[in-house]
């Protein structure tokens, strides 16, 4: 039973990451932008797991855990901030929250 080479997974993770980046700059809705970040993190996780398997080491997987935890923390705080912004500006469009400038 032949198996899939690592590079397939890596390319996939690269593509997902790129899409995440594109979404990150393309979307206007703050919540969606946070989702784009999550997408990037997921892509990175995929690369982690793939590498870990390729080298036959577990450290990569452990790091996946840490990435997930950080993602959770980030989501919690980020969404709290989103709620704040919505309460203050009645809008989720990131381009409308632009007071922090010169």
């Amino acid at each position, binding site marked *: 039973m032949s198996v899939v080479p690592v590079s397939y997974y890596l390319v996939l993770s690269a593509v997902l990451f790129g899409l995440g*980046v594109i979404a*990150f*700059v393309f979307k206007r809705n703050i919540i969606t932008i946070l989702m784009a970040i999550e997408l990037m993190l997921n892509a990175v996780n995929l690369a982690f797991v793939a590498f870990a398997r390729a080298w036959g080491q577990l450290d990569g997987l452990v790091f996946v855990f840490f990435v997930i935890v950080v993602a959770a923390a980030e989501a919690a705080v980020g969404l709290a901030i989103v709620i704040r912004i919505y309460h203050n500006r009645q809008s989720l469009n*990131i381009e409308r929250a632009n007071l922090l*400038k010169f």
Partner: protein
Amino acid sequence: MPILEHLWIILALPLAGAASNGLFGKNWSKTIINSVGIGSVSLAFLSVLEAIREFSLLPDGQVSFFKNYFNWMAAGSFKVDFALQMDHLTIVMLLVVTFVSLLVHIYSAGYMAHEEGYYRFFAYLNLFVFFMLTLVLAANIVLMFVGWEGVGLCSYLLIGFWFLKQSAINAGKKAFITTRIGDFGFTVGILLLFWTFGSVDFGTVFAKAANMPAESATQAGVLTWICLLLFAGAIGKSAQLPLYVWLPDAMEGPTPVSALIHAATMVTAGVYMVARMHALFSRAPIAMFVVAAVGAITAFYAATIGLVQTDIKKVLAYSTVSQLGYMFLGCGVGAYAAGIFHLMTHAFFKGLLFLAAGSVIHAMGGEQDMRNMGGLRKQIPVTYWTMFIATLAIAGIPGFAGFFSKDEILDAAGSGSDAHLTLWVLALAGAGLTSFYMFRLIFLTFFGKPRFDEHKVHVHESPRSMTVPLMILALLSIVGGWFAAPHLLGKTDHFEAFLHPVFATYGVPAGLEQRASLAGAAGEQGGIFATPAMELLHAVTGPPVVLAIIGLLVAWWFYVRRPDAPKKLAESVHGLYKLLLDKYYVDETYERVIIRPFLWISANVFWHVVDENVIDGTVNGVASVAREVGGQARELQSGNARSYATWVVVGAVGFTVLMLGVWGMVR
């Protein structure tokens, strides 16, 4: 316990005293403060004695004891250690400093008893002792400079001790700033010294200097410059022309201070420094001549001013200046030993004079003007007798300390290898004047009718704590010079012999070599005085003595026999009198020539032009430039997070392309 190995103890004791008194003394009773202050100094004195005992046990070959405690600072080749050294010269200074300051401390306990800031006073005194000892014990010129500045600081603090008195504050500032001028030269001298010898260690420097040939008397070499610069510092510190002006004003300070700092110890630091640096000076004839000339002129000049002063302490101040001049004259003509000798004796009798004057002032309830005294002979006999002895000593009456030392100096100036007739004449005249104004002081103060209201002023003898030091010093003023007595009989001068190893160490030129051992020196000077008896006769009937007697008689004539004569004389030569009374208008001249222009320049150039335009302009300019740049750059901060995100992506792309690209290349 081996003090010699741990010379730092001698320094540590007064410092500890100063620290404890200064930090905690505020709430302490006078007894504790006394015990701490006096105790620390007396302990220092004892440890000095112990150190001397141990020093005497050293093998004969060893001239000086040197010990390096720790490396203070090192920058490249510039290396300064906290190193102390001890040799005969140091011993003399140590004895003088510790002993006199001990007496002064005891005296102060009585004199300052009713003063505010008692603890402060003793803290300052101890601190002064610490710095003075540092200056004396230092084994390199930088450390010496530390002590040098330290004593300056203490002098400033103590002159301005009554810091509520404007005059006192001004006097303190004046002393500090004036000496600064000299110290500037001193500093440059140190730099030049290091630049020349590549070291600041006395030992190294002198050893190097010993191999250098003596410079010619016609054009100045580097040694000359070093010496002159250092001597500038000495001029400032020891109140010589033209920087003497601070010393008379320094009399604003408490009298014990005047006795200790401005008569016995600090002001003699310059002399000590010159003597310490003899290895350089004796190779720089021009510098030597300058020293001698300054000394002689100052000696005469200050004496003339002293003639007409009416404030008892001012008279003593000017006499100090002139006496210091004698010391420099001695060093200048190569008779370092004589200079140091006079330093010691002067410490005794001038300290005594000041303390006695203080006692007089104490008795008069703060009155300092001699015109309002007189006839105190009976009321305060102890003060009177001690002060009289001191006067005899300073006037150079044979048998008293001053006679021997001053005689040696004059002798060196008049008949030495580097003798200068003019200087000798000046010095002689100065000696005569000295005797005159000192006896004038005595007569005005103690003889004649009381010129004060005896019902108001209750004259009383000072307490024991003040009189005992007076007596001790009086004794010393008599016997202090007898080391040199045999010299008059053509035998060796013990004092000079004692110091001889120091001044002989670094290959001193021949002329001084003869002076150093005076055995039979008189024989060379002229065949006429063949026998010791004739020698003695010559000495005691020599010009100085004669002049001293004359001065005494004149003073007696003027102030005891014909008390109204001075006024007449003053009217007859009114111009001269006024000139002397106003001290040659030196202060006014300085005021006009230096201070006012200086202030004007500072205000109109440095303040209104340099500071306001150049410096402020630069700073504000930088600020405005930054503001402009920021104003342009802030446009990037659009506040739109998407733009920032895009910038992040730009960075990411650049980074990946760069890194992975490079990585790929490497691959």
